[in-house]
């Protein structure tokens, strides 16, 4: 503990005594109102982690629920700590060669803590994408290592390129307002790379057959989707960093309409394609619409956002089918398609629909090409770094649980107990009579009014 005293001393400097002036000025008020807006955004982005946790646990099997929940909690926690210690510096520190930041570690010298808080919430989002794709088979310990690599280094470097201001992609004119590439594509490529090393879940593919492994609780997944949609208003809206009446409502409006369009198009498209309105694909469709508009939410018109969303919904359905049945990449929650394919689409969509530089608005191909370069660079960087990292750690021990543990469920194997006890443990050694709800008897009883006096 005492070794930390140096650290404490450094941080001590960060604490300024409140300088909330007795007489407010328009400048101080501007700071305050922007603060409230950015904090609201940060809270909403934080809440997205609840959304991810619910989607990922709902779309996978009951026997792995504790595991996926713990992965989500550890992700947000590790990400915040690491971003504080090293990530923020690498991402927003003074640029070394337009490639990476070089100061601001432990926030030393950083004044705008509110910006740190907002950005810290984003980091975990990028890493948590992976947890969904590797669900039901990756070791908890190995996953934690990947989170460390992603949040401490890989993501901050991408962020530096695009969001720090002096990054090389920024210099090229690459535009990614709220992170279709920075956050979502980076996360998805990381996920894809890990999944390629990991392989599919036991029983997912057998010979030529693709087996269905249904999620155990779609309603809680649907709640997660609602939470994510809500959180995204903060994700995109807060990225304005200012309560700017000329910008914020457009950002929220495009986010709302793109997503609405994507839900409608994915629902309709599954109905046409599979003769059923597929619920879980439509829920993914919502996320597709959100990821699709994230890059361009501040420079695409409301009408444009609807088109972006409509296409996102269709790409989502085809993308998931393609990965699942053609490439046989087992992604239990569809994370790679949602964040990767739609992340690319969203990034490119800026080159098409940006009202200032987009192809369809007379801006020519230049923005589109820059967007493409950015996508390629991020894919390459993430794939290589994550690939090397996974390759190295998999030399030391398997990154996958044993087949026996996978079949028994990661909850019991890694956490010692189960997520649900919906029917009561029937019998204790104490000979205590125990009721059992949900039992057969309950269900055999007809629930009918007997006592007319009450009604």
């Amino acid at each position, binding site marked *: 503990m005492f070794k930390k005293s140096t650290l404490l001393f450094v941080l001590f400097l960060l604490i300024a005594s409140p300088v909330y002036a007795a007489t407010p000025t328009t400048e101080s008020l501007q700071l305050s109102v922007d603060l409230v807006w950015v904090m609201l955004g940060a809270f909403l982005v934080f809440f997205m982690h609840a959304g991810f946790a619910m989607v990922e646990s709902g779309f996978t099997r009951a026997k792995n629920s504790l595991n996926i929940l713990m992965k989500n909690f550890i992700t947000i926690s590790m990400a915040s700590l690491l971003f504080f210690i090293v990530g923020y510096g690498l991402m927003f520190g003074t640029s070394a060669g337009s490639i990476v930041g070089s100061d601001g570690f432990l926030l030393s010298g950083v004044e705008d803590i509110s910006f740190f808080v907002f950005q810290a919430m984003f980091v975990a989002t990028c890493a948590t994408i992976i947890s969904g794709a590797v669900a039901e088979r990756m070791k908890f310990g190995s996953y934690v290592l990947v989170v460390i690599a992603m949040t401490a280094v890989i993501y901050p470097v991408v962020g530096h390129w695009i969001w720090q201001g002096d990054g090389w992609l920024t210099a090229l004119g690459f535009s990614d307002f709220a992170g279709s590439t920075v956050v979502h594509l980076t996360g998805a490529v990381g996920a894809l790379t890990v999944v390629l090393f990991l392989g599919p879940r036991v029983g997912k593919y057998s010979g030529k057959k693709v*087996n*269905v492994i249904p999620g155990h609780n779609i309603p809680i997944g649907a709640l997660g989707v609602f939470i994510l949609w809500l959180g995204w208003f903060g994700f995109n809206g807060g990225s304005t960093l200012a309560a700017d009446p000329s910008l914020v409502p457009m950002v929220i409006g495009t986010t709302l309409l793109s997503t609405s369009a994507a839900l409608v198009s994915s629902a309709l498209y599954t109905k046409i394609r*599979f*003769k*059923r309105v*597929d619920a*879980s694909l439509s829920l993914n469709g919502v996320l597709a619409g959100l990821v699709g508009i994230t890059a361009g939410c501040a420079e695409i018109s409301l009408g444009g956002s609807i088109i972006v969303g409509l296409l996102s919904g269709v790409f989502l359905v085809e993308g*998931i089918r393609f990965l699942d049945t053609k490439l046989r990449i087992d992604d239990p929650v569809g994370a790679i398609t949602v964040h990767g394919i739609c992340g690319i689409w969203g990034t490119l969509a800026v080159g098409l629909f940006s009202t200032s530089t987009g192809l369809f608005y007379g801006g020519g191909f230049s923005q589109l090409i820059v967007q493409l370069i950015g996508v390629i660079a991020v894919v390459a960087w993430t794939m290589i770094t994550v690939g090397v990292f996974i390759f190295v750690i998999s030399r030391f021990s398997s990154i996958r649980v044993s087949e026996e543990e996978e079949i028994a469920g990661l909850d019991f194997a890694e956490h010692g107990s189960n997520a649900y006890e919906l029917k009561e443990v029937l019998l204790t050694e104490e000979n205590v009579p125990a009721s059992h709800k949900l039992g057969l008897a309950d269900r055999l009883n007809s629930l009918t009014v007997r006592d007319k006096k009450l009604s």
Partner: protein
Amino acid sequence: MKKIETIIRPEKFQELRNKLSSIGIGGLTVTEAAGTGKQKGQKGVFRGTTFQIQLLPKIKVEMVVENDQVDEIVNLIIDSCSTGKVGDGKIFIHPIEEVIRIRTGEHGINAVL
């Protein structure tokens, strides 16, 4: 004594139970089962992938009765549970050597009356 064990469609249980009550048969034990036979399953779709459902939900009803009640009850089961469509189920008649009521220790037919 005999045990009449019958596998029926779940939705027919209540009708069967009511008819059994009306002829004075009140004691029975029910379990949930899944069955397969001639009856065809259903097709589902999840995330665009079609899957086949082969085992179908059934209810197993067991009642221990006096030998001379068997025919009446068999007819009553056929009467209540037959829909004419494949999947209506079966009746199996088992021999039972002894019955005991736990509460009183009574043996034989008194144990189930």
